[in-house]
């Protein structure tokens, strides 16, 4: 077992969670509806994945108001950013190794 494989995070094994992290990696914050449209998933499905990312403190909820309508958006935490980058590095190394 190579050491970098420890950096592959369980939290990112799911495509939806991976997608959420990718979108948050390049945007300051992304709101719930945008994430839903980007990933093409149902509200309930997305909500449960967001909750699990929240639980491991990889993302944070940011409640704001657009006019008088509440708007839920999400931001990546520092821990989330670090974990995501490690995950990417590990993926990269893994693929390099195997395609040799």
């Amino acid at each position, binding site marked *: 077992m190579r050491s970098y494989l420890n950096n592959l995070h369980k939290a990112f094994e799911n495509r939806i969670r991976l997608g959420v992290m*990718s*979108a948050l990696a390049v*945007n300051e914050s992304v*709101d719930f509806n945008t994430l839903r*449209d*980007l990933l093409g998933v149902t509200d309930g499905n997305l909500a449960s994945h967001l909750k699990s990312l929240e639980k491991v403190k990889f993302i944070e909820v940011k409640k704001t108001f657009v006019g008088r309508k509440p708007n839920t958006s999400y931001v990546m935490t520092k821990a989330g950013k670090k974990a995501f980058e490690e995950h*990417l590095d590990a*993926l990269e190394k893994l*693929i390099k190794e195997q395609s040799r």
Partner: protein
Amino acid sequence: MSNTDSNKNYSQDLFEIRNMMEKSSRFMALSGLSGVLAGIYAIVAAYLAYKIFYFSDEIIYKSISYGELSDNVIKLVGLATATLVLALLTGLFFSYRRAKAHQQKMWDATAKRMLINLAIPLFTGGIFVLIMFSKGAIGLIAPATLIFYGLALVNGSKYTYTDIRYLGIFEIVLGLISCYFIGFGLLFWTLGFGVLHIIYGTVLYFKYEK
């Protein structure tokens, strides 16, 4: 899971990540066809300007004095504005169609970001041109519009197709050249807003829409 299987999965993961980063941060409904049409409008407008009220920038540059604006200049501004509005409407229509075909929203965070970044140099240029107009520096208006339009494209390109960056650079170069050749504003406008738009629209169309 065999080695090749997992490799495939991880490659798929990487593809997904790239795709999502791209999709969430760039406006991808920009239409090449509307670029081609905008170029055609520009050429038609330039032809009309040449035929109907032909004048040379240089003549106006030399003859203009405060409070005495040539009728032709007003007409030309009107024609340019009408062309711009027509080009914008066409762009909106085609973007809307493309977004709909891909089941995306046209007006989302990426569109907003692109437009804001386009608008900053564009409005700066617009105000600058108005000031030049009021000071009678008519000869430099055409070059200035090309330069500021180019800067706007370079700035906005970070939030849409990167090809737009090169279009912007070409517009800037053309604008700088036309600064030197005052009096040929109409010709450089035709090249910058007409020919370059048609070339780039065609490139975008074949690259992303075909």
